[in-house]
């Protein structure tokens, strides 16, 4: 099995507690099922992105090969493996939102924050993650998600109000 090098990062007590909670939901020996939830809490505690050290720490704690953690982090869109802004903004531009003016929302946010989609603001506050695929709020289009909170029936004015209130 993989040689365990000395870690420079340790998982927080909070992260361990959350991971233990999830591991308990699966049968004995199936702790790999908790990898997604473990990465979620660790990414959240690290202000929005994962590092190789954190992924290794998760693998070691759950006791799965590290590659199994890397491949999950690479596969799922919620995980970021490069430094980025803390608050993740995802504007849905899929069909229902496209028909209700999502392009105007994307353009407005890019202008307001001075970044393009895929970039973070220099102060590290916002990450305009991507033109998001459907987030299942189609009847309230256009919409966006910031850190998992949905904002629906958007207009440029509403977007200003929402972004201005985020600390």
């Amino acid at each position, binding site marked *: 099995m993989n040689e365990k090098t000395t870690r420079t990062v340790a998982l927080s007590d909070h992260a361990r507690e959350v991971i233990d909670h999830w591991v308990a*939901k699966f*049968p004995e020996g*199936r702790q*790999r*099922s*908790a*990898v*997604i*939830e473990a*990465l*979620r809490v660790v990414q959240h505690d690290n202000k929005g992105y994962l590092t190789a050290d954190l992924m290794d720490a998760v693998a070691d704690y759950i006791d*799965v090969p590290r590659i*199994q953690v890397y*491949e*999950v982090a*690479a*596969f*799922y*869109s*919620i*995980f970021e493996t490069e430094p980025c802004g803390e608050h993740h903004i995802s504007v849905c*531009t*899929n*069909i*229902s939102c*496209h*028909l*209700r003016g999502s392009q105007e929302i994307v353009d407005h946010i890019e202008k307001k924050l001075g970044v393009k989609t895929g970039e973070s603001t220099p102060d590290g506050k916002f990450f305009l993650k991507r033109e998001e*695929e*459907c*987030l*299942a*709020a*189609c*009847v*309230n*289009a256009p919409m966006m*998600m910031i*850190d*998992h*909170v*949905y904002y629906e029936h958007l207009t440029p004015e509403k977007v200003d109000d929402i972004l201005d209130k985020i600390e």
Partner: protein
Amino acid sequence: MNYRENENLVAFAPFGLENSWTLDAYRSIGGYQSWQQVLSGELSADDIIDKVKASGLRGRGGAGFPTGLKWSFMPRNAPGQKYIVCNSDESEPGTCHDRDILRYNPHALIEGMAIAGYAMGATVGYNYIRGEFFAEPVPRFESALREAYEAGLLGQNINGSGIDFDLHMFVGAGAYICGEETGLLESLEGKPGRPRFKPPFPANYGLYGKPTTVNNTYTLASVPTILRKGPEWFAALGPEKSGGAAIYSVSGHVEKPGNYELPMGIPFPDLLEICGGIWKGRKLKAVIPGGSSVPVMPGEVIMECNMDYESLREAGSALGTGAVVVMDETTCMVRMLERISRFYYAESCGQCTPCREGTGWLNRVINRVIDGKGRSEDLDMLVEVANKIEGHTICALGDAAAWPVQSFIKHYRHEFAYMIEHGGRSIVEADGKAAA
């Protein structure tokens, strides 16, 4: 039939009650009565499966497979662990009603999963909820689960009945492909959600290699009502072969977009009227009647159509998830298809070459047309690439990527041809119809 009088009869039944997501609200409409009958031995596993079969319930996740038949495939009496898994990974573009079931009627899903588990000999269930639902639907479902445990409705030897059923929640992390049932099982095992080759089917080799049935949220949440009101009542709501109600997620260019739970088979013009008609007084152009994967239908075709499995299939499309995406006369069909093709390109898991490579080709060629660099042979090439993906992949994502391309070009070829001939200019702009 007055369709409006038959709104919210199944999974949306408690809507309008104060705190409709609580156990008290759910019990006030007869919730958990069926589960209590199971616990007291009045309802056997065979009875349940027979009633679900008689109700005509079909899978609401898109494929429309008969639910009772699916349940009967489980080797119920075989030794060893078996699982019931709910697919709350709602992500088919245009579809947003499972989110409302989770937010406003989570107990119907819990009861449905418990009953399904019992009927199939599964003592453990997982509800796989998409990761983006983390802030609102997830805590709602979690708190309902807690209430159900505290009320003694779940657990080991429930109320001394000798029946065990433990239900857990699982939260995904953003991948459309995990809505495919074997991709979902891979994800539940902590892996990338790459679909498995079938056979073996999950009923024989599912979660952790154990017999498993995966059903959609709305399918499972319909079960308690079916048992409470009777399979005949449910079947009679819709036409033959399309029993019950559908939640139509109507989005796009209508005055009142929304989730409407209405009897199956409602004529499209009636549905459109309930949604306030086409917005801004404009004309209907086209409708995608069942989520982005199903073929697009010209407005004049769907205006003659009823909204159920068989009618839409006969008209060349499908009910799919019941996501009805309405487009008015200002819609550029080339740009619409570009957005759809981008989705499948982004969400292809990459394990099958025709899908991994083909979805990229489709998207790049459509973008070339939009950029004014289209060639006259591009339309035939798009159809050819789509035909080479369709039917040549492990899962249905490949088919789902192909069908919009085939149907958009079949019905709106002139719009694509116009754009190619006019250096990227859209026909709707030329007609002066473009939206402001």
